[in-house]
């Protein structure tokens, strides 16, 4: 950025214009995002902390939250490995149709979640052509979450892999490192922040997922009901307070994850000049 101070009338007008843009942005964000979220927070505490606690610790709520978090963690672990492997193949390997595969990775971004759920049900459900039926099981939840979170680790790792200095790996080889040691000591440490970022994004996405899960899991309370489905159910049965309380749990988790991603980004660039 230039440090030239331009103090003409035009510049002052421009700064004024910038202030206007900022004002509009803040106003828009407040009305669209901040206001509704504040409403959730306040509604959850309407009956006092005791009511909040009761709502969050009710057996069904706890069961749904536990399933949500466990499934999401499992999905994140799978994605960490699968996503890195896929990114590796897309960057380092060469084969016909690679650009098509690269494009297809974004499918979970582009496809509506309900359609994703329906297609998974079509393939891995009761009338599926390959005879595998995982519908209405916890495995189905994991499957649906794997689908929608697939792109995250791949897309955060890819650019880092592309930027990685190939000389570093050759230097390590010339110093005697085996291919495995090169990956472990040179490549992986440089990929780790990106992998973790992708994992955090996957996690945030997974805990809130609704559309992909709602068809294939069967939403059986205490068995295959995830937190978002529980919240939905509570809204339908007019127990808005309980819905708000569990929502706050999800909200706070999202905030924490976002903060973590920001911290990871700073950690990733700590060695840069």
């Amino acid at each position, binding site marked *: 950025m230039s440090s030239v101070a331009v103090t003409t009338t035009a510049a002052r007008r421009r700064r004024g214009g910038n202030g206007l843009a900022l004002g509009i942005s803040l106003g828009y964000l407040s009305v669209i995002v901040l206001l509704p979220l504040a409403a*959730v927070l306040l509604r959850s505490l309407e009956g006092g902390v005791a009511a909040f606690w009761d709502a969050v610790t009710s057996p069904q709520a706890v069961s749904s939250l536990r399933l949500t978090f466990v499934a999401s963690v499992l999905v994140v672990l799978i994605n960490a490995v699968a996503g890195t492997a896929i990114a590796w193949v897309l960057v380092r390997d060469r084969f016909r149709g690679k650009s098509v595969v690269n494009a*297809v990775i974004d499918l979970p971004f582009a496809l509506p979640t309900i359609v994703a759920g329906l297609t998974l049900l*079509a393939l891995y459900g009761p009338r599926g052509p390959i005879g595998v039926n995982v519908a209405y099981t916890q495995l189905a939840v994991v499957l649906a979450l794997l689908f929608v979170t697939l792109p995250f680790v791949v897309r955060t790792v890819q650019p880092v892999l592309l930027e990685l200095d190939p000389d570093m790996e050759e230097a390590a080889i010339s110093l005697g490192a085996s291919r495995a040691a090169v990956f472990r000591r040179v490549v992986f440490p440089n990929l780790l922040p990106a992998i973790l970022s992708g994992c955090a994004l996957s996690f945030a996405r997974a805990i809130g997922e609704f559309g992909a899960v709602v068809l294939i899991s069967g939403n059986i309370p205490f068995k295959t009901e995830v937190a*978002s489905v529980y919240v939905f159910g509570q809204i339908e049965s007019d127990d808005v307070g309980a819905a708000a309380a569990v929502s706050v749990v999800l909200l706070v988790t999202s905030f924490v994850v976002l903060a973590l991603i920001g911290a990871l980004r700073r950690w990733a660039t700590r060695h840069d000049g």
Partner: protein
Amino acid sequence: MARYALRIGALGYLAALLGAPVVLVGWRAFEDGIDAFLTAITTPEALHALWLTLIIAAIAVPANTVFGVLCALSIARRRFRGHGLVNTLVDLPLALSPVVVGLALFLVYGRNGWFGEALIDNGVRVIFALPGMVLATIFISLPFVVREVVPVLREIGDEQEQAASTLGASSWQTFWRITLPAIRWGVAYGVVLTTARAIGEFGAVSVVSGRIAGRTETMTLHVEERFQSFDLVGAYAASLVLALIAVATLVAINLLRPKEEER
């Protein structure tokens, strides 16, 4: 050797998770023949759902685009107090459950909500009507234009704009003639992502729409409704339309993706 194993493993995983299910949608949609497909697609409910989806997108996407550009300009051009807060607020919709978003809007604009009574007294229905669905869609598709435009603005710097102002251009002229052309591909990419997200939204509109078939159902809600009514062909037919839109989006994403990612 390891290279082939890795390649087969990765591609196999992708085929099983992404490829096969999507192919199946096409197959299932035409399972009872082309006529059944066409009938399912052209029922009044289906057509209304399509129309509603497009209307909502037609409102939400431009709104988020204008906001997105303005917000990106604020973020990229100056560090100001509250910089972090704006960043967090913009990113939040990416990390939130859509059901929570629906609930939040319900609590503000619903019958017992903060503005509920005031709105109803004035004959304005937000929840269980179009405005609520638009608000929900705007919320969840908010971040994309901002997120794509900010790095572009940072990269091009503000020297061109300074040059323009020394040559006498007003802020509007500078913006229109210098800034906007420079960021247009970032904006285009953001618009594609926003549109895809808006069309695909399910959870939030599920809560705020009331899901009245033929009145407040979007395409995604229509798919679910057909499924719950055991009309599988109807569900797959609508899904196929959505999947085709998704494929078109994929193509657009890959054509417009910022070129630094390609070597």
